[in-house]
């Protein structure tokens, strides 16, 4: 081991240390340690004057190791390392000996013991520094561009911010159009803005934005990760409609699917099953891209061996092309924003609500489609059973939410938005038809956001009725439904007649398990994407370069979704901004001579940061993924893998230095 020239710099900390620890004694002790070329002390090591002295000593004496005995490394370790770096010494050859919190503060009333301990701490760090190797901080180029998965309001808003910052954005949407669930809601609370009026401009902006490449009817099927780069494999499903489509809608008019006597019937996913749709269709008028799509699963041409070409024959633009094939595209990006959104809970398992058994029991999203003037009932809330307008509506809260932990049928979390959705829909109906009666059966009405309470109060003023208590049963009484409920407010037992019962069903995560697996993302217990830190970092994830926003991360309203999309976009921009990704130097490294390719390290690594290379049969570290936790170093049978600056020899040196027995027995 070549001789080292180590400098020991002891700080008085203006008395915080020197009042208890005999700094002179520690300095003299340090001076006599092996390889210690200099031991000195300062009133304030962290002051400018202290830093300059440190740099001057490094330059003049050519020190190749420094121990600063001062306060906790959490305070100035980075600063001292940077200063040492400026002075020409490798910053990672500097260590801190914490003789303030761990000595002068912790043993205030035992100065001699504090001094003795300070000596040992300094000795331990010197021994460690003598075994440190210089580390150069490597950087890896970050692939430019970002992929946004999910074309709802979260994905759209995030894409716009990033695109406006000049980043190349690839927006990938599974369904034929962007817009997501927000496009299905008629209005948004608490402002009662028309949803489409606030969403459509953003859809157009993102559709026409030069920096955004839009891949719709496309799904991410795989993702590979390498330092600073994600390579996504995207499968584009064939629309069988070319860009020549001029949107004349003749094909939809003539398509036989879902007509009265047609053997193929298909419910419109967009209209939440309230109406049927043709095989060739446009989900909703403002859909973007404005292209029709042929659903091969319900099209005569595909299902009945080419027996029908009506759409192709009558299409004036000759835009129908049955020969299109699924297409796989590779998308290389530096960052990924997961904005896959939510889907509505299916209340069928809650049999006592009779959803699915009685046509007049619907969910809030179905109710929204009824309120939409472009919807299946042209804005009139009608009974699905006979189409007549509904005079009394009973809404039920917490359907599928706030259930027992670990229950396979219902969720344990509160879905956060359903109370305000119910208030919104109720007062929209009351405004449209004042003579209609609306009851909201709730457990706790959660109107917690800005303007929510005022919105809730206003709904009472226009006559929305609130019953505190969830119902026992929804039962049919001839044509109308009867809802059995005991109202805690009035104490009365009610049997509320209802033309339509609306269930405020829970928000569930969109099923994206294979996407999450491909990106090595975890799910939190409620099934949503797990954020890096629920409180102070909700839009980053444990995987560097992958961000999350909107309902993919948990139930939330549009206001919070926009806030998260902004935060995620900013974090992604910062990550991409430098173009260079400084790799954390304190990560694992493998000595190829010792590695037996036994895969023990890959089994314990939770960041998928190590993999045995099949050709060289040696474990290879993905430095962008490795966090340096060191779990692998414990299970490696040949100590081939170690974490830089925390190798076994370095730690053992510190142990021996601190130990009561100077030499092994």
């Amino acid at each position: 081991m070549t001789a080292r020239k180590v400098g020991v710099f002891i700080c008085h900390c203006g008395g915080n240390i020197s009042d208890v620890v005999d700094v002179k004694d520690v300095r003299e002790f340090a001076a006599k340690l092996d390889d210690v070329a200099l031991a000195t002390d300062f009133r304030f090591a962290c002051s400018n004057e202290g830093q300059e002295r440190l740099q001057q000593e490094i330059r003049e004496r050519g020190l190749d190791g420094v121990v600063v005995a001062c306060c906790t490394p959490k305070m100035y370790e980075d600063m001292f390392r940077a200063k040492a770096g400026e002075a020409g010494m490798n910053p990672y050859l500097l260590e801190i000996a914490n003789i303030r919190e761990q000595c002068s503060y912790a043993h205030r009333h035992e100065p001699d013991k504090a001094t003795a301990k300070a000596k040992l701490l300094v000795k331990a760090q010197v021994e460690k520094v003598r075994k440190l190797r210089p580390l150069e901080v490597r950087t890896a180029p970050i692939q430019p561009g970002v992929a946004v998965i999910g074309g709802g309001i979260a994905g759209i808003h995030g894409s716009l911010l990033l695109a406006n910052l000049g980043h190349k954005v690839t927006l990938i949407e599974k369904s034929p159009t962007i817009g997501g669930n927000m496009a299905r809601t008629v209005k948004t609370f608490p402002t009662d803005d028309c949803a489409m009026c606030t969403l459509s401009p953003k859809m157009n902006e993102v559709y026409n934005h030069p920096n955004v490449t839009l891949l719709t009817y496309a799904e991410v099927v795989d993702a590979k990760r390498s330092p600073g780069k994600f390579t996504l494999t995207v499968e584009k499903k064939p629309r069988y409609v070319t860009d020549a489509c001029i949107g004349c809608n003749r094909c939809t008019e003539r398509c036989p699917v879902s007509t009265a006597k047609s053997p193929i019937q298909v419910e419109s996913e967009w209209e939440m099953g309230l109406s049927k749709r043709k095989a060739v269709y446009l989900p909703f008028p403002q859909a973007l891209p404005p292209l029709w799509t042929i659903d091969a699963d319900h099209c005569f041409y595909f299902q009945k061996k080419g027996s029908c070409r009506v759409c192709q024959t009558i299409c004036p633009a000759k835009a129908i092309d049955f020969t299109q094939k699924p297409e796989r595209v590779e998308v290389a990006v530096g960052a990924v924003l997961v904005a896959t959104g939510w889907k509505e809970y299916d209340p069928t398992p809650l049999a006592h609500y009779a959803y699915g058994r009685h046509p007049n029991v619907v969910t809030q999203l179905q109710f929204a489609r009824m309120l939409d003037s472009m919807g299946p009932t042209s804005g009139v809330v009608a009974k699905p059973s006979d189409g007549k307008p509904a005079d009394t509506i009973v809404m039920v809260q917490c359907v599928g939410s706030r259930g027992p932990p670990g229950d396979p049928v219902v969720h344990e979390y509160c879905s956060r938005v359903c109370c305000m959705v119910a208030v919104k829909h109720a007062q929209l109906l009351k405004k449209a038809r004042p003579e209609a009666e609306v009851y909201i059966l709730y457990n706790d009405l959660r109107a917690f956001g800005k303007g929510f309470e005022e919105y809730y109060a206003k709904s009472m003023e226009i006559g929305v009725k609130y019953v505190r208590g969830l119902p026992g049963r929804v039962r049919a009484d001839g044509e109308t439904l009867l809802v059995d409920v005991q109202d805690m407010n009035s104490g009365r037992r009610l049997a509320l007649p209802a033309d339509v019962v609306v269930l405020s069903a829970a928000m569930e995560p969109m099923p994206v398990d294979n996407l999450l697996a491909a990106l090595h993302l975890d799910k939190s217990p409620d099934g949503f994407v797990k954020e890096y830190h629920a409180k102070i970092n909700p839009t980053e994830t444990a995987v560097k370069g992958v961000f999350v926003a909107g309902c993919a991360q948990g139930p939330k309203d549009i206001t919070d979704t926009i806030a998260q999309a902004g935060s995620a976009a900013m974090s992604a921009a910062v990550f991409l901004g430098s173009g260079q990704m400084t790799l954390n130097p304190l990560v694992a490294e493998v000595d190829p001579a010792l590695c037996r390719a036994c895969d023990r390290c890959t089994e314990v690594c939770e960041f998928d940061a190590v993999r045995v290379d099949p050709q060289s049969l040696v474990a290879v570290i993905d430095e962008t993924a490795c966090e340096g936790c060191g779990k692998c170093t414990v299970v490696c049978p040949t100590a081939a893998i170690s974490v830089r600056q925390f190798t076994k020899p370095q730690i053992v040196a510190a142990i021996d230095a601190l130990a009561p027995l100077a030499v092994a027995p």
Partner: protein
Amino acid sequence: MRYAYFPGCVALDSCKELDAATRAVAEELQIELVDLPEAACCGAGNLQESSPDTALALNARTLSMAQAGGLDLLTVCGTCQLYLSRAAKQLEDPGTRDRINGLLARTGRRYDGGVRVKHFLQVLLQDVGPRKLKANARRPLLDLPVGAFYGCHLLRAPGAEAFEDPEDPRGIERLVEILGGRPVAYSHRTACCGFHVLTTREDLALGLAAEGLSEAKGQGAHVLATPCPLCHLVLDAYQSKAGRAASERFDMPVLHVSQLVGLAFGIDPARLGLKRHLVSLKPVVRELEDEEVVKA
């Protein structure tokens, strides 16, 4: 088809007719009912409250008798079905089973789990099946409007979901159709009859019975059919009292499901014990026999 037959307590006492009808129908369908003379009471909720372990031990003892013959246990009462199948479920847990077997050992018995508990209605619909029932329906019910009264316990018994949707059961309606009758839909067909508070809060039981009877009458039912003797007692024996309490005249005959099947099989009404009912069944029997003279 052989079953260990557990009639319970009421079906051998105040509702003897249920046991008689069940045996008559079983005989018609070549179902062998193996009696369990030594089986004890299912606890009906009361024993479960006063001493849960005793109730579980007694039910384990009954189940062990069925297990001895390698037979499923057949009940004819909703409450027996609930507490016996609940006990069977609890006893699927090895820990509980060992603890209870520790008690049972003192009587030289042991239960190893796996016995299935089935109500006669489930046996008729699933094991016997529609074709065989129809074949035996020598005297179809001639569109007799029958209102089903399920009671609660049969629907809440663990395993009931195997043959019924507790919120929207159709078993009795299907049975009535198979036997040529016309099921009458009314919203109280799955309501509670209040038997379990009959002695402590008679007013509640009368109120509940009145609601059901009034609804069924309102929808045009000529007769009710119930799979539980306890519901039968409240609906039939206390019908006049319930009428007086709700100031409404009721004259609604109430049949046990076994009796309804017996009538459709053309079994002599006397053998079905119809004359033990407080609300006379004569109108129903006359409606089924139209021209023939009926002996009371």
